[in-house]
């Protein structure tokens, strides 16, 4: 059961409804939570919108916070840039209570933010948005040659991979030698 269904005590008053069928069943008051990213800017988001995120939904489902408690305890996502979190929050608000259509025109399209967006969405476990974002990533190489794909997705060549591996081994060897020398020094 979600927090919205449990009905936290400080939730906002229900909007009057005009539809006759909903008049019979009184609307459950909506509860809100607060999140912030690396920039500390706090976003107020309804529990309904946050249901898209399996991570946040799992965090809030048993909290039973009052409005004041929720406000005083925003969820910190220090690993997510403020503008990325804003995008995610906007998307969650736009899709509150409804599934994402296959071609969603409301989704973030900034290619330069795509990498960070994918990581954030993956962390927040927003399955539908993640699928769309990964589709956007895949579309970046549609019709491209392997050489172009290598550039677009910054894939090192075999020679570069081998050089990096050698370098890593060399570094690890040096570190191990340093540790051995330090241990020998300690023993003396």
């Amino acid at each position: 059961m979600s927090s919205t269904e449990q009905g936290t005590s400080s939730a906002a008053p229900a909007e009057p409804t005009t539809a006759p069928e909903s008049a019979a069943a009184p609307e459950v008051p909506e509860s809100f939570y607060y999140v912030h990213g690396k920039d500390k800017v706090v976003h107020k988001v309804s529990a309904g919108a946050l249901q898209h995120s399996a991570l946040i939904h799992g965090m809030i489902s048993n909290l039973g916070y009052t409005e004041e408690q929720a406000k005083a305890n925003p969820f910190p996502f220090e690993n997510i840039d403020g503008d990325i979190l804003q995008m995610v929050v906007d998307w969650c608000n736009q899709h509150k209570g409804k599934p994402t259509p296959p071609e969603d025109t409301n989704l973030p399209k900034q290619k330069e933010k795509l990498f960070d967006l994918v990581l954030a969405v993956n962390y927040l476990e927003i399955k539908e948005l993640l699928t769309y974002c990964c589709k956007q990533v895949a579309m970046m190489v549609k019709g491209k040659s392997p050489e172009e794909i290598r550039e677009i997705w910054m894939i090192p060549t075999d020679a570069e991979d081998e050089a990096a591996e050698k370098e890593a081994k060399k570094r690890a060897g040096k570190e191990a030698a340093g540790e051995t020398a330090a241990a020998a020094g300690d023993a003396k």
Partner: protein
Amino acid sequence: MPIALLKFPTDLLREVFQQCDPFELYKLSKCSKRIQKSIRSGGTKNWKLIFRGNLVIVSVDGLHYNFDVTENPDEYFKTENPRGYENYITIPFDDNFDAFLDLLDTFRIRIVEYLRIEFGSFEQFSKLARGLIERNIEIEEVLIESTPQVKKVDKLMTLLTQMNTTQKFKCLKKFPPKFRHQMDKFPKNILIYSSFWFTIDQLLESTCVRIELHGSMLKNQDIDLFFQKWKRSGSFPNLRWLEIFSKNIDDKSPILGMIPPIENYGNRSIS
């Protein structure tokens, strides 16, 4: 704006691979050994592979992606379709047989929808069959064409019948007169154009739904024996259709107590 794809955690990489079509994923696999390993470790795909001899096709939910081979570097990964195919790409390989096995491994495909033995040497077909047996791949349908290019069909048959063929085995090629073979595994449907070697014992062991034997050597006594068994409850529970063309079936001895030709018994007939 480039993206450092390999900086994604493994689960995210797999999610991106999931969204790539076979052409993009294949080209990606050719970018480096590391990314190829990453793609190959991404689990098996429910895509199917089709071998048509002149083309290798990846079938994704009924949509076909046609892969052709070329040795000309200027034509690598071109999508123009000189033969009029839609969804077409050329990949750098000497022949379709190696390309087929590479696609099988790259996409971790477990099912071959259709395998057509038509153009190629015995060595190439043997390699293909052995590759499929080693990988324990399910082959839904096998067709051996009657073209002159199909050589040593007797030896080939030994290999092909070891494959895990599940739906249909169709052989249009004639076998040499001394050919003898024992089929141990039966797909749902078999159609053998030159079936003189298919004995009554093999017929009695079969588990097929549909059997068509042309050029058979079976006699009235064989058919009678088979029908007597088929009549018994629980025998050949799968069998729905049996068609045998044999010059040894005559009007000299009875089948189920009747002398051929037997006609107009419902929709069935023996003639």
